[in-house]
């Protein structure tokens, strides 16, 4: 009996949704009044490129000056350029469009210089269902893993030059990027609380996880958000990863905090972001490695930001560590191009101190999807 009632109720609900009554004529008549026929968006005519995807191109060129010669710290590292150099850090080509009423797709190709060779990598390429209902969304493809906040942002979206040491050491120079699938759930309620679960192929770029056993990396993440009115907000997150580290499976646990002050005026904006990670390979004689970064950006003029960043990272599976202090300024000429200068000093227990001065020139053309928070 109960099933009959439920089925009837569902059928009635479906019918009600499918057969919405027509809008009262007098309201429609009022709604579509136009003074200048043909100028309203409702009367937009279809043009040839209507169904083309949004295309964007982001160019990141840099001039670097390093104060010493010698072997780079590691081949993939962001300060592997020795001496003075102009270089193409990255050219990112992005595409985004709705596949159909149910699915949205995005793809980002990264062209970059690696040891003097031009390389192309798929930075992200996925299709996402956002209308599943019940607070769920799902995507599959090549994903930026839901680890912390910085890892999910592309290089051009960072508030400083490069990914923090800890991200590079755990996941590779470009962060955790791997094929896989992701499901996230927005918990009911007025506060933003989100749970994400992902299954990814083990990244082949090196880092903490090993792809020798061809097993998956499992990622879990929770984040919450506190909005303190118009000006300030805090985002807190926790991430957990489990994957093969060779003969066994290791874990990474991370926490992240982002505080933003966004006054209505054009100056005085502030962003503090920090993430910390503990990586336990679960292998005999291997200790848990720790890494973290903290960065503070402050808007001193409508278009000028200054920042400082501290990095510390223990290389997993070794006794090596490095720490860095960076200071920089960003001049955002418009929202589509900026100049940035950063001085960074790096100290470690296995190399002499390095001082690096970098000037970045970055621009964007086309229609780039909005940045993730």
């Amino acid at each position, binding site marked *: *009996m*109960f099933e009959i*009632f439920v089925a009837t109720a569902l059928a009635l609900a479906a019918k009600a949704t499918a057969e*919405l*009554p027509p*809008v*009262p004529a*007098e*309201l429609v008549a*009022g*709604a*579509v*009044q*136009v*003074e*200048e026929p043909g*100028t*309203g*968006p409702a009367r*937009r005519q279809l043009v040839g490129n209507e169904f083309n995807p949004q295309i964007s191109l982001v160019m990141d060129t840099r001039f670097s000056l390093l104060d010493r010669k010698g072997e780079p710290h590691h081949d993939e590292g962001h300060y592997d350029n020795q001496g003075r150099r102009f270089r193409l850090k990255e050219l990112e080509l992005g595409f985004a469009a709705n596949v159909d*009423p149910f699915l949205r797709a995005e793809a980002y190709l990264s062209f970059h210089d690696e040891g003097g060779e031009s390389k192309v990598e798929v930075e992200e390429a996925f299709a*996402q269902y*956002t*209308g*599943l*209902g019940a*607070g*769920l*969304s799902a995507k599959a493809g090549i994903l930026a893993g839901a680890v912390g906040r910085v890892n999910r942002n592309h290089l051009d979206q960072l508030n400083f030059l490069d990914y923090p040491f800890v991200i590079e050491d755990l996941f590779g120079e470009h962060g955790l990027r791997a094929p896989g699938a992701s499901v996230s759930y*927005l918990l009911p*309620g*007025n*506060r*933003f*609380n*989100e749970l994400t679960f992902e299954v990814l192929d083990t990244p082949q770029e090196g880092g903490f996880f090993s792809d020798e056993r061809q097993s998956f990396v499992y990622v879990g993440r929770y*984040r919450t*958000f506190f*909005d303190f*009115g*118009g000006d300030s*907000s805090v*985002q807190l997150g926790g991430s957990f990863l489990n994957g093969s580290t060779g003969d066994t499976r290791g874990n990474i646990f991370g926490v992240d905090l982002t505080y*933003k002050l*966004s006054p*209505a*005026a*054009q*100056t005085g904006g502030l962003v503090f972001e920090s993430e910390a990670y503990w990586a336990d390979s679960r292998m005999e004689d291997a200790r848990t490695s720790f890494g973290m970064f903290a960065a503070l950006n402050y808007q001193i003029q*409508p*278009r000028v930001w200054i920042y400082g960043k501290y990095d510390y990272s223990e290389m997993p599976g070794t006794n090596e560590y490095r720490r860095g202090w960076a200071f920089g300024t960003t001049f955002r000429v*418009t*929202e*589509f191009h900026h100049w940035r200068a950063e001085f960074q000093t790096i100290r470690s227990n296995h190399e002499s101190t390095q001082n690096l001065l970098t000037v970045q020139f970055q621009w964007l*053309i086309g229609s780039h*999807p*909005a*940045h*993730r*928070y």
Partner: protein
Amino acid sequence: MNKPLSLLALIAAAASAAAQAPVRVVTTTQDLASLAQAVGGRHVQVRALVVGARDPHRMEARPSYMALVANAQLFLAVGLDLEVGYEGPILEGARNRRVMPGQPGHAYAGSWVPVLEKPTGSVSRADGDVHPGGNPHVWLDPYNGRLIASGIAGRLSQIDPARAPDYRANLAAFEGRIDRAMFGDALVARFGGVRLWEWQRSGQLETRLREQDALRQLGGWANTMAPHRGQPIITYHRSWSYFAHRFGLKVVAELEPKPGLDPTPGHLASVVRTAQAQSVKLILQESYFRRRDADFVASRSGAQVVVAPAGVGHDPAAKDYITLFDTIVSRVGSALRR
């Protein structure tokens, strides 16, 4: 009571509660929120994302917005790419099918009004922060507010048909308020708001009123602004085009050399020359832009800088859509009367 009857009673009670619950409306700006509240009355629960005197171009897709939109039955945005930087991620993060584009629960106010300054020919970012669909500051024309309110009433009636008569009644009441605020009580009582708007929109208001020997009855915003028709003004951003269009003001320059770009010394020098040549009395700008550029031009041209609310909530006096125009018209009128 047997089990089937209990279940029936439960379903009936749940349906009744759902019917009584207010429609949850989320808008991007407080202007749309004010209009939705006026039309929805006690049947809606309205929240705006952009609160206070903030530039609606430059907001971020805060996760808290996603949580709000996740529970919405109607999502109202201005459109015309005003919210292009954050609408997509908010809707994506909200995961709410009801308010996805194309659904009855998603609407752009910009699609209900005549749009000004729609670029013709190719559009390039060399022109600054241009909007290919036209100028998005549509709410700064009270006639557009009337149209948007009508559009909102249509959507609410579609989502919540049982209360459609109430929405129609609220819409009529709101239209009456805005008509009386625009033309004054006496003229609205004599000719009706629709006819007055028709005359105003065709530029024949004063002629027709004179023919009817009713010009002296003109009141409201139209009366305050009538002496200033054709007056040249300067604005900071291209956000006052709709207001100027409605009240016959002529925007002769903007402090921004191109939309979205900060004023440069060379451009300000040319604006000073324009202000001097055209005897500009008023430089109009929003509170979230710095004043020093407007003050610079004013000091060399004799114009007066007026900081006016460009939206509901941008100023304590602009509490709702009607008082927004009360405040703007009062400040602009005072400056132009000098």
